[in-house]
């Protein structure tokens, strides 16, 4: 089933200070951790369908449900990227025209495009902030999206301290 994490971001949640060097990556192969913000009506239902029909897809993703893709405020994406263990974010909503609130995904589309451009200019690879349209019936597509994004981010390497150390980001 879909493991959901309530959007309960405890205030002041910041793990270790970044002034200390983070502990070395565990011995076995590094696995990216991806936060996925799903709109409740389409993408979350799609992810639920994927889980319900036992579709296999990488478990690197932590899903957070929100009423609409327009509610996915870049501060949520920023807070996720700030977390020491997070390496990428997926924002997913209904296909244009299907939005339960009619135009939410249109606003989200513009907003995420500009946010990605800003992140890229600040030096965070655009592949770390991905967006997708997944409808309630597209369980399979959701599984593909997660698989592809996981591969892309695995190629980019970890976003946090180790990343600046061994600069895995290749252009």
């Amino acid at each position, binding site marked *: 089933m879909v493991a959901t994490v309530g959007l309960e971001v*405890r205030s*002041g*949640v*910041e*793990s*270790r*200070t970044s002034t200390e060097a983070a502990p070395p990556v565990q011995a076995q192969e590094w696995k990216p951790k991806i936060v996925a913000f799903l709109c409740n009506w389409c993408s979350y239902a799609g992810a639920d369908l994927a889980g319900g029909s036992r579709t296999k897809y990488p478990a690197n993703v932590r899903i957070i449900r929100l009423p609409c893709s327009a509610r996915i405020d870049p501060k949520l994406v920023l807070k996720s990227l700030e977390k020491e263990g997070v390496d990428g974010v997926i924002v997913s909503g209904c296909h244009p025209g299907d939005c339960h609130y009619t135009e939410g995904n249109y606003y989200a589309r513009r907003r995420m495009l500009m946010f990605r451009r800003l992140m890229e200019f600040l030096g965070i690879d655009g592949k770390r902030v991905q967006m997708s349209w997944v409808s309630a019936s597209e369980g399979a597509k959701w599984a593909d999206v997660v698989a592809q994004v996981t591969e892309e981010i695995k190629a980019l390497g970890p976003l946090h301290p180790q990343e600046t150390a061994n600069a895995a980001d290749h252009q």
Partner: protein
Amino acid sequence: MESRTLPKDRLDQLVDALIADYTVIAPKDERSYGEIESASEWRSDGDKPAQSLKQFFLPERELLVRYTKSRSGVELVEPPSPRSMARVILGARPCDVAALPVLDLVFQWDDEDSLYLERRESTAIIAMACDEPCTTCFCASLGGSPAGTEGADLLLTELDDAYHVAVVSERGRELVDRYSDLFEESSVEHERQRVQAQEASLAKLPRQVDIEGLDEVLEFENPVWETLTQQCLDCGICTFLCPTCHCFDIRDEGTPQQGERVRLWDACTFPSYTQAHAGQPRPVHYRRYRQRIMHKFRYYSENFGRTLCVGCGRCIEHCPVGIDLRQVLSQVRTG
């Protein structure tokens, strides 16, 4: 005052000797003082940096205590005592140095703030007299001068071929004795050059402001406050860059399992400074700016006998909208 002479060609030797024995902090660029690894990193001729020495005694973020929660309960770990790191501040301007004894008063009041005071005890200060005061300097109005010795252990004054070294404190003498081979006895000629150099720079001081008896004149009810600095934007530049402003916030950063309780710079110009559930006693700008002036020029001297300002002029130089404290102090007096 006892003095020595340091030939110019031996300055770099002195700096390298200090770097070998101490952590040496000196002006690095026009932005801030910083730790230097070699004599070349010290920018000895420019104006005072935008940031003062405050950050080396009251850092902008300072660990107070680190907490970790385990099954046996919360474990608190204190930061290591700053006493362990011996430091020398080199080439500090007299106004920045004079600010430290003013700050000592509040941090010694009743409960001794060990984090601040141990840093003070473990840091020797070699000041450098100013030869070119800026257009915004008004140290003389606060009893200081471009060659002020207050708070310094040694004061260097640049002469033609050497530096005049005034030995101000016991710690200064220890420094001079430790590197005695670099110093020479001070000559009458050097003394004459020092007096002449210091008078020359004093003459270059721009228009000063009259602080005499200001603390009696400052009235809370004076209507002039309401329009005095209406162009102020309530940012934190004048308080953060001020060498004597010391207000701070205490916050926890981390998870309930582990994290740090830290002290952060804060500013009375920020609306959130006195925001409380019970209400906001200073909701509008003029009440906050009035507190800034009253605290620095009246309340601090009523409590500690010293004005909380050294006339360095940073709040004037860096104010985003060109507010000049000298003008504010003269207008609030005439009122």
